[in-house]
């Protein structure tokens, strides 16, 4: 029993902190709500430090093998923590400017992390589902957070309908898996599948529906239709958060499920996800090229990044899931960095703030801003020596190790295509003349976020060992 408590120690800590955060929010003055965010960051850091797994290969199961605390979940916790810290810092000024700087924002984001942590540390589908919904419901609110703005409303509604729809489908599939195997616990499902295969209709049906629900969550190709609208409609810092953390959590949870429960039938789902990966990244990239709105472009690029991450899943080896973990960590920095920069951009011309034209000639007026954006763009494109490269490198390592060369080739070619639209931003910033009076006011919070992200993006390749050692010691 004590073991059970220990096994959810990180989550318990986070929950306590989350509750404290609520109290802080309630007590804080109306004009000092940003403090809630800062406290949230402090809490996340504390929890991060307190829940460091004591040694490699550490693994504690709890609640009759329903949850586990191990390096794997810790690695994903890192991603969530990074995402939280970055987007909180990035949000402060954005929210202040729009007069929606409420404490709930930070609290909800904080609680969404708890949901994600449960998704990743779940070894039982019911815990996974609860985590999923904790996360998803928080994200619905955040997507529609700017309630005065129509786009945000619509993003919230769309995300809600599609999200609930997808979790419904996921859940329905889950019931069949449960019904067929008689349990929701991963290891029992695994054993059952090992003994009986997956030839029975119910389990095929169930697994396919579960995969579809999962594909929805990560915005993989045929199930992506919500993503661009939601990402571009949601408040910009939230969009940054949404493209990273929930996706990471979905991957984290699903990989654990597949690597534990699905391992006896790897080949069966490998092809499914391989096709999904190809379609997802190709679609995301091709459509992103056509975008003139940077936020929307980043939204489509987020789809394509889901495609790259899927390669790690398809590889279905240790390097694969390590790569996914590392990729999401890095993605947290670069993508949220880009969205943070996007959120401080103010265009006084007739076009929207996030149009490509806003970036024209920005390098002259805001050299540091432009430099940071350049770094993020190239990092997203996966150009060394920036951090994004390490992530992609690891992903392709996984594919090569699994001997899925064709997928790796399609992947790298895609990442070359992707360069084009990331470069367009830099083209506008550096190569064009300013068309409108554009303001990019990086105040302390957003500046710190950008600074951290830039430093990480720049230096991660030089000092990647820390993160790599963490993911390297992950065991599903």
């Amino acid at each position: 029993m004590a073991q059970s408590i220990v096994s959810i120690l990180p989550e318990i800590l986070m929950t306590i902190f989350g509750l404290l955060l609520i109290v802080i929010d309630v007590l804080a003055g109306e004009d000092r709500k940003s403090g809630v965010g800062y406290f949230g960051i402090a809490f996340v850091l504390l929890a991060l430090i307190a829940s460091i797994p004591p040694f490699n290969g550490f693994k504690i199961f709890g609640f009759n093998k329903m949850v586990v605390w191990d390096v794997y979940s810790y690695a994903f916790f890192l991603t969530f923590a990074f995402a939280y810290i970055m987007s909180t810092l990035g949000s402060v000024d954005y929210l202040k400017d729009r007069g929606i700087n409420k404490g709930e924002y930070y609290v909800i984001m904080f609680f969404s992390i708890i949901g994600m942590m449960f998704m990743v540390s779940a070894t039982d589908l019911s815990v996974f589902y609860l985590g999923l919904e904790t996360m998803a419901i928080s994200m619905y609110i955040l997507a529609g957070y700017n309630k005065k703005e129509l786009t945000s409303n619509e993003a919230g509604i769309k995300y809600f309908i599609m999200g609930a729809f997808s979790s419904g489908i996921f859940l329905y599939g889950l019931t069949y898996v449960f019904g067929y195997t008689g349990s929701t616990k991963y290891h029992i499902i695994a054993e059952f599948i090992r003994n009986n295969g997956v030839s029975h209709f119910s389990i095929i049906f169930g697994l396919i529906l579960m995969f579809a629900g999962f594909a929805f969550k990560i915005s993989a190709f045929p199930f992506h239709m919500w993503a661009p609208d939601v990402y571009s409609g949601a408040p910009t810092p939230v969009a940054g958060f949404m493209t990273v953390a929930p996706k990471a959590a979905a991957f984290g949870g699903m990989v654990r499920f597949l690597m534990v429960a699905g391992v006896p039938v790897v080949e069966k789902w490998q092809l499914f996800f391989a096709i999904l990966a190809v379609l997802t990244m190709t679609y995301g990239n091709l459509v992103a090229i056509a975008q003139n709105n940077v936020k929307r472009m980043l939204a489509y690029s987020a789809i394509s990044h889901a495609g790259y991450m899927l390669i790690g899943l398809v590889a279905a080896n240790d390097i694969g899931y390590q790569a996914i973990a590392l990729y999401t960590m890095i993605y947290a920095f670069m993508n949220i960095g880009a969205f943070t920069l996007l959120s401080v951009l103010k265009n006084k011309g007739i076009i929207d703030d996030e149009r490509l034209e806003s970036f024209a000639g920005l390098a002259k007026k805001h050299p540091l801003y432009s430099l940071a954006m350049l770094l993020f763009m190239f990092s997203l494109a996966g150009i060394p020596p920036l951090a994004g490269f390490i992530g992609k490198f690891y992903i392709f390592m996984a594919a090569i190790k699994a001997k899925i060369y064709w997928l790796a080739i399609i992947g790298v070619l895609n990442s070359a295509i992707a360069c084009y639209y990331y470069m367009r931003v830099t083209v506008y910033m550096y190569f064009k003349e300013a068309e409108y009076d554009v303001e990019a006011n990086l105040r302390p919070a957003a500046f710190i976020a950008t600074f951290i992200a830039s430093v990480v993006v720049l230096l991660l390749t030089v000092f990647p060992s820390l993160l790599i050692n963490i993911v390297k010691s992950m065991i599903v």
Partner: protein
Amino acid sequence: MEMTLQHYLILSAILFGIGITGVLIRRNLIVMFMSLELMLNAVNINLAAYSKYLHTMTGQIFIVFVMCVAAAEAAVGLALIITLFRNKATINADEINSLRG
């Protein structure tokens, strides 16, 4: 007539199908939302049926969770619909189109 597992599964499949169809073809957000709840209830039927035929409590406990989630979803979903209505005075899904582009 003896009720077998299949009967429950078929019932839930029908319910689920109605739910999916509702979400996909209805354009009133409230109705879509209700269809979503229908999907969850189909899930509950499945869980209960399996739980009974497998003689395990897992499914029934799961139902409580699902209901709980459905409640939270309802709270959030309705709030979102209300905020949308305040800004746009419509709950027709087809008119939610300011994000095309």
